[in-house]
């Protein structure tokens, strides 16, 4: 237990001192602010362009902006958040493999699984902090500007999107622990996502595949029921567990 604690402490120090934590917090903070700000500014921007658009025969009626507009923006930005977090943690194993920094620790008798577990936990911790930071900033601004900020179904929708991040991150780390390059891990994760997304086009499969979890907006607009998300949610959770286990197996077989 002490070994795991020390490894977690080391990973956390790394995040802070290499400024990764700062970059993540700033960018995810900006995401949170932008979601509400863009919604709030939409009518103003449209009125700004209104005259020139009117000349082309496009006219607008009264534009009503609600908390739902901010949440729409929130779900549209999700893909950027996934890419950012995956890119930032893609090298978490590779940089140690390539530089040989793990050798000193492993020859002290640390188990490889603990090394992998510490990295997995710190990546999930990073994702959790960043994701919920964006969520609560969006929520805070929405509550300030509009009524009914807690749109029906928002908690489940947000949780599903969070779990999709957990699935993607554990998938990436499973690749990363077995590979020498972080870029390959990132690309393979992207590949698996695209594959799942493509398979999701088949109506029979769409309910079961993790990408369904990113579509929280349909729950807010009432196009889907909460039960429509459950199969994908359970499957993503199960995959995440399996992938985390694979991450710890990957490092065992790694020749350093």
């Amino acid at each position, binding site marked *: 237990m*002490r*070994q795991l604690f*020390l*490894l977690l*402490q*080391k990973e956390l*120090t*790394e995040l802070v*001192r*290499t400024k990764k934590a700062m970059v993540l917090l700033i960018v995810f903070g900006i995401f949170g602010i932008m979601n509400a700000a863009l919604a709030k500014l939409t009518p103003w921007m449209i009125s700004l362009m209104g005259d020139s658009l009117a000349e082309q025969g496009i006219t607008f009626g009264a534009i009503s902006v609600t908390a739902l507009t901010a949440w729409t923006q929130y779900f549209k930005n999700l893909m950027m958040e996934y890419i950012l977090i995956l890119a930032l943690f893609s090298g978490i194993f590779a940089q140690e493999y390539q*530089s*040989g*920094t793990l*050798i*000193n*620790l*492993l*020859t*002290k*008798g*640390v*188990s*490889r699984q603990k090394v992998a577990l510490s990295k997995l936990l710190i990546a999930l911790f990073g994702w959790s902090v960043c994701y919920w930071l964006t969520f609560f900033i969006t929520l805070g601004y929405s509550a300030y500007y509009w009524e009914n900020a807690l749109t029906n179904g928002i908690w489940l929708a947000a949780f599903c999107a969070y779990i999709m991040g957990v699935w993607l991150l554990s998938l990436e780390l499973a690749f990363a622990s077995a590979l020498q390059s972080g870029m390959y891990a990132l690309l393979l994760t992207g590949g698996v996502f695209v594959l799942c997304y493509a398979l999701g086009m088949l109506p029979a499969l769409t309910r079961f595949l993790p990408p369904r979890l990113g579509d929280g907006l349909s729950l807010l607009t009432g196009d889907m029921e909460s039960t429509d998300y459950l199969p994908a949610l359970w499957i993503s959770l199960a995959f995440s567990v399996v992938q985390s286990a694979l991450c710890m197996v990957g490092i*065992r077989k790694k*020749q*350093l």
Partner: protein
Amino acid sequence: MDVLELTGVEKRFGERTVLKNLSLSVPEGAIYGFIGENGAGKTTTMKIILGLLAADDGEVRICGEKVVYGQTRTNRFVGYLPDVPEFYGYLTPKEYLALCGGLAGISQNALRPRAEELLSLVGLTSAANRHISGFSRGMKQRLGIAQALIHRPKLLICDEPTSALDPTGRKDIIDILRAIRSETTVLFSTHILPDIERVCDQIGLLHDGKLILSGRLEEVRAMHTKSGFVVEFAEESETVSFLSVYPGGEADTTSRLIYPTATRADMIEAMKLLGDMRLCPLKIEQREPSLESLFMEASVE
């Protein structure tokens, strides 16, 4: 008792056999010089000892316990200094030693004095709170020794610790190794032979994946008595006339003759001749078999 024992170790990378039936043993308290040219298999051997590589055949024992590939418990006996030790640049030496010591299971109370003791041993006390990212190669090498010794290992394995350093850096490392010899057994690989002569008492010569020479340094030297002698004259003419009477010498410079394969009896004969010829050399001396000559001789055989 032997701290380290390798029996019949084989290692292949694809078609290439890197270690061929390698057996060696390192007795307790020794500083064992593990010599070999680049690519001889020194690093591979060390990685197998540490369980970082799997041997294809044979057995490695440390303090009597068998080494297994991957997660090996024998590493608690071992401190390892890689050839180019790498650290987390964002940590300070103090923090790094605290991490390593903690991972090796040293109690919190014992850790701080041990880290301070080691930092002073390797001369890094003044840099103890600086980030490692700004360290020179020599400083990293010294910190590498400190981290390897943090848990008082029975066996310290150093992979070419002096190869990348300037003469001062090399001397520092050799001095540190000398200072710790009472505490731990050292296995020290290198291709810099003078370093071995300065610090090691046992040597093993690895060539082409096999140990072709091993034992106590003096014994190995004594086994190779055909070390010859050197005569040095003041004048070139003396050199020429002596060589014509006593052939077999190689002119090293115009005034220096080396008889590389001559025995003691040959040398006495030469001295007699010098007297008969009334030649007075500047010096005549037995050649101490240098490691270099042993190395060359053994590699050729």
